């Protein structure tokens, strides 16, 4: 059984954080979304269907130096016969809002692929989910390191 006490360093950090929060509420900034919020957002999207890894590919740099505009590409492989890829949904768990964007492909779309630029608040895991016409969902994640923060200032 490990000790229940906080390590000294962590305790000091938290105490300083709490003091800062109380003393200068004007400087309070929104924190990242909680894992529960992210889970809820994804659950809302996926519904009853199972979320499987694969099919979709999320392309993001692993080391981000300018998080104000990070090039992101979402692509997908060939979906199972009889289905088509309807949309991509991207979530950044440590951003103030976990939603990044929903990208839908209509009947005139070519291959399902989108490139855009996104903001990242912190080092985090970004998840892309592809939704197929049969309701099934596939996902891919990228763990990345942000060396500067955007979104908040």
């Amino acid at each position: 059984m490990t000790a229940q006490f906080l390590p000294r360093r962590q305790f000091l950090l938290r105490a300083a954080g709490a003091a800062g929060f109380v003393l200068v509420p004007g400087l309070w900034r929104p924190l990242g979304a909680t894992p529960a919020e992210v889970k809820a957002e994804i659950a809302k999207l996926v519904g009853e269907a199972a979320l499987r890894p694969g099919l979709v590919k999320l392309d993001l740099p692993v080391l981000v130096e300018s998080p104000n505009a990070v090039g992101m590409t979402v692509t997908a492989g060939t979906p199972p016969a009889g289905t088509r890829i309807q949309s991509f949904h991207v979530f950044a768990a440590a951003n103030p809002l976990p939603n990044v964007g929903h990208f839908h492909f209509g009947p005139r779309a070519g291959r399902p692929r989108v490139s855009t630029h996104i903001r990242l608040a912190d080092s985090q895991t970004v998840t892309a989910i592809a939704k197929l016409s049969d309701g099934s969902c596939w996902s891919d994640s990228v763990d990345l390191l942000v060396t500067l923060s955007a979104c908040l200032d």
Partner: protein
Amino acid sequence: MTRVLIRVPKTVKPGQEFEIKVLISHPMETGYRRDHQGTPIPRDIVKQFRCTLDGEEVFRAEMFPAIAANPYFFFHAVAERGGTLRFEWSDERGTAWRESAALTVE
């Protein structure tokens, strides 16, 4: 005034996939920033973007503050015959913009 840059090939072959690039000039203010006086800068983002070819949807995006300033999109479309590509986007305050481009298929 919001400006936009749209890149579409002049001519495409029927049934062959082609690329569309769109760059919308917009600050995409997140609502989390503060100005020099410390007052919060209100959120101002483009929420929806839609590209259609003669009324049929090609691509549609729903955006959040995590989309960087000057939203850029790169996507693919397929056309069997020529027509008009329409681009429509709107912000959360109800302002809408539109642009169109002619597409020749041969």
